[in-house]
């Protein structure tokens, strides 16, 4: 009985901790973006620039670039997938 109660309390505490961790990470990113959560606002421009840069060498469509973001506490990762047309002979990077 006691053991069960203890386990339940532990579980509940853990979800509150998860909530706090998630908020701290998210808000740190939002606040660092010059106030109004603008952190990710450069991403559309970044994508446009990437597409343009690649187009100097290979002809790709605008939807052939996929940008993904994973925000972390210590660092965030930006994943950029470019799908190249098969004529070029190389596959997606």
């Amino acid at each position: 009985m006691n053991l069960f109660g203890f386990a339940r309390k532990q579980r509940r505490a853990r979800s509150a901790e998860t909530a706090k961790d998630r908020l701290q990470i998210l808000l740190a990113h939002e606040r660092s973006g010059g106030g109004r959560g603008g952190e990710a606002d450069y991403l559309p421009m970044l994508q446009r620039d990437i597409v343009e840069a690649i187009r100097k060498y290979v002809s790709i469509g605008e939807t052939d670039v996929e940008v993904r973001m994973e925000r972390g506490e210590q660092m965030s990762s930006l994943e950029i997938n470019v799908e190249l047309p098969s004529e070029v002979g190389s596959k997606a990077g």
Partner: protein
Amino acid sequence: MTVDLKEKPALGRVIVITSGKGGVGKTTSAAAISAGLAKQGHRTVVIDFDVGLRNLDMTMGCERRVVFDFINVIQGDARLKQALIRDKRLENLSILPTSQTRDKDALTKEGVEKVLDELKQEFDYIICDSPAGIEHGAQMAMYFADEAVVVTNPEVSSVRDSDRVLGLLSSQTKRAESEGADAVKAQVLLTRHDPARVESGEMMNVEDVLEILAVPLLGVIPESQAILRASNIGTPVVLDQPSAASRAYEDAVRRLTGEEVEMRIAGERRPGLFHRLFGRAS
């Protein structure tokens, strides 16, 4: 990359989750309903219409993966395909987050319609999570709806606001404005229902609320600790461990897809002999 299945054409049903009043459980319900639909195998997308106060991403647990948003798509800065976030738990569930930085005027009727039309080609259910209030954002969320889920708490201001929203659904929507079109099918989802307080006469019961609002009932979601836990960990309640709330949402989802499911109200049983003799537990 989204749907390359040789399946039947998408149903393309647009359902708005709305309420008027804030804090009644719209986003929780939008997350639970969309996850519930996807869990049943329906291709589902859930859109956050609360521009400037994005929260669906947190409730769905994808807040760290937002790159582009609904507004980027409307303004042509990103393609829809790029802005959709594929859920990590259910492959036929996608999330379209909103912008945290723009203001509500960025939602234009034409822009919203274009995005919804594109989504209708690929998804069976398009769940629109409305912001609170009855201003522009809420109007945009409901304008193109085929159906509405009006989230209501058994409490006076919530019921009053729901009534107001029901009025808007029957006058300020595309279906209301198009001659010959069926009205938006509106149903009430009663949330934060507390059977003990209903029983003691402190809280209006389901019949009271329905009598006032005069629309069909989609479901009754009990007040539950599972809701806060699910929001803490960023998991729609139907994807977390089973609870009275998750069962109630799953029933509501089945009704939404046209199934007939008996209305069971969690905890609301005739008090048994034991209770009558020894008083109420909880």
